[in-house]
C-alpha cells in the first residue's frame, strides 16, 4: 500500500532536457512561472503555450504521463476557478439564482486556469526530467551566494538528499510496524476520522523513536568519515555548464522578450490592420 507513493517522480529518458544542467532547469522554471504573471493578453499566453509545448516535445516525456500526475490537483484548480467565476463583482453576464457570472469574473477565471495549469505542468516537466540528486546539487550551487548572509545552504541541501535516501527505508519500517501492530489486533481501518487518527499513535511513536535512533547513528557514521560541513569539501560530480546550457539560457531570454512583445504589440498591430 505504501510502496505506491512516488515522491519526486523522475521519468527516465534520454533527451536534451534530461541532459541540461539542473541549474538551467531550475532557473528556467522560476522564470517561466514569473513570466506567467508578467505576460498579459491572449497573445502572451499563446507564446507561453508554444514554449511549453516545445519543451515537453523535447523532453520525450509522454504528455499522458504528465497529466496522470496532475489529477489530484484538478480538484483544487476547479475550486479556485469557480470561486473567481462567481464572486468577482462587475458587469453581469448571466444570473443563476443568487450568483452571477460577471464579465470580469469570466476573464479572471480563465486567466487563473491558464496560469495555474501552465505553472503546474511547467514545474512537473522539471521534476520529471531531473533526478532528486541533481536537483539538490543544483539548488546548492545556485543558492551559494546566500551563504554570505549566513544561510546554511550546504547543510539544507545535505538534509534534503539524506531525507530522500531515507524515504524508502522509513516506508519499509512503517510497513513492518504496521504489520506488527496488526498482528496484535490494532485497527487502522474502521471508525470515524478521530478514531482513525488516534489509531495512528501506536504506529507513529515507534516510527519516530526509530527515526531518531537512525539519525543518531547516521550522524556518527558521517563524522567518522570526516564530514564537517560544506567547507573544504570537494565534489565527486561537480556541475559544469556545457554549450547546450548557454544555448538554453539564450532561448529562455528570447522567450521572455518574445512573450512580452507579443502581448503588447500584436493587439496594437491587429487594431491598426482592422482600422
Amino acid at each position, binding site marked *: 500500500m505504501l510502496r505506491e507513493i512516488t515522491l519526486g517522480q523522475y521519468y527516465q529518458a534520454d533527451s536534451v532536457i534530461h541532459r541540461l544542467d539542473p541549474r538551467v532547469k531550475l532557473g528556467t522554471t522560476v522564470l517561466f512561472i514569473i513570466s506567467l504573471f508578467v505576460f498579459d493578453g491572449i497573445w502572451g499566453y499563446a507564446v507561453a503555450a508554444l514554449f511549453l509545448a516545445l519543451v515537453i516535445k523535447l523532453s520525450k516525456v509522454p504528455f499522458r504521463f504528465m497529466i496522470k500526475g496532475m489529477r489530484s490537483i484538478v480538484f483544487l484548480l476547479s475550486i479556485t476557478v469557480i470561486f473567481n467565476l462567481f464572486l468577482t463583482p462587475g458587469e453581469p453576464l448571466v444570473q443563476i439564482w443568487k450568483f452571477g457570472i460577471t464579465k470580469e469574473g469570466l476573464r479572471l477565471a480563465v486567466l487563473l486556469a491558464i496560469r495555474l495549469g501552465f505553472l503546474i505542468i511547467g514545474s512537473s516537466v522539471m521534476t520529471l526530467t531531473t533526478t*532528486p*540528486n541533481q536537483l539538490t546539487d543544483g539548488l546548492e550551487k545556485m543558492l551559494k551566494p546566500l551563504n554570505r548572509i549566513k544561510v546554511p545552504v550546504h547543510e539544507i541541501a545535505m538534509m534534503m*538528499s*539524506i531525507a*530522500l*535516501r531515507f524515504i*524508502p*527505508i522509513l516506508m519499509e519500517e512503517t510497513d513492518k510496524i504496521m504489520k506488527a501492530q496488526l498482528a496484535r489486533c490494532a485497527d487502522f481501518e474502521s471508525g470515524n476520522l478521530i478514531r482513525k487518527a488516534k489509531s495512528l499513535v501506536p504506529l507513529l511513536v515507534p516510527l519516530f523513536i526509530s527515526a531518531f535512533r*537512525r539519525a543518531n*547513528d*547516521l550522524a*556518527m*557514521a*558521517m*563524522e*567518522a*568519515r*570526516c*564530514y*564537517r560541513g560544506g567547507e*573544504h*569539501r*570537494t*565534489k*565527486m*560530480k*561537480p556541475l559544469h555548464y556545457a554549450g547546450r546550457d548557454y544555448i538554453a539560457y539564450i532561448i529562455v531570454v528570447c522567450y521572455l522578450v518574445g512573450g512580452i512583445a507579443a502581448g503588447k504589440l500584436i493587439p496594437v498591430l491587429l487594431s491598426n490592420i482592422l482600422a
Partner: protein
Amino acid sequence: MGMGLIKVKDLIYEYIRRDEEGNVEGITTAVDDVSLDINQGDFVAVLGHNGSGKSTLAKHLNAILYPTEGTVWVDGKDTKDEKSVWDIRQTAGMVFQNPDNQIIGQIVEEDVGFGPENMGVPTKEIWERVEESLKAVGMYQFRKFSPNKLSGGQKQRVSIAGVIAMHPKCIVLDEPTAMLDPKGRKEVIRAVRALNDVERITVILITHYMEEVIYADKVYVMDKGKVTLQGTPREVFSEVDRLKELRLDVPQVTLLAHELEKEGFPMPKGVLTNQEFLEALDQCISEVG
C-alpha cells in the same frame, strides 16, 4: 621498534546514568583500565558478550568518544587533541553495525565518494579511489545501484569500500556482521581478510562470533569492561572452560576436541579449523591404535 599504530594506555570510560529529571543515578564504567598495542598490518579481534564494553572501546579508536582517564594514541596522535581529530578519523576508519544507518549516498558510487569529498580530494582522484575501493571489496559491478536494492552483506561491503576510499592505515569494524545472515557474514569477513592480506591494512574486528576471529593475529576477550583473556586465537581457544564462563560460544570443532581431550584422548589444545581437527584426529587414532 617504536610505538605501534594504535596504543591504548590505562583507558577508563564512564557513562553517567541519569534519571528522567536529569539527576545522576549512578556511574557505569564501560571500559575499565584497558591497555592495547596494535602494530601496522595486524589483524586484531576483540571478542565479548553484549555490554562487555567492546563497542565503547572501538569508538575511542576513531575519536568518537574520548577517554575519561588514560590515553589513546592513533599513529602517534593523542585522540584528546582536538586539532588532530580529522587526521585520526582518516587514519582509523570505522564501519558500524547497521548497514542502513551508515550509507549516505543515493547511489553506491556516490556513497563511496563521500569520505574523499569530505577530505577535499580533487574530483579526478575521487573517481580513481572509488573505483579501486569498490573493486577491492568486489562491488564494482554494483556501482550504479541504489543501496536500497542491495543485500545486507553487499551494503556492508559498500560501507567498507567507503572507508577504504579514505586511504586509512587501519579500519575498525564494530560488529559489522551482527545484523547479517550467514551468507552475508561470510562475504564481509572474506572482504576484510583480503584487505588485511593483500593491502596490508590493519584490521580491528569487534565481534561476538567466535568463527570470525580464528584468522586474527591477536585476540582480546573483554568482559565487564576489562580485558580478561588475550593472545593468539589458539591460546585463547585453549581456555574453553574460561570462555564458557564468559558466555561465549566456542567454535564447534574446538569444543569437540576439548571434550575428547577431557575424556582422555590425546588431542592438542585450541584446535581451530576442521582441517586441523581431522589431522589431530588421525594422529590421535594412530597413537591410541
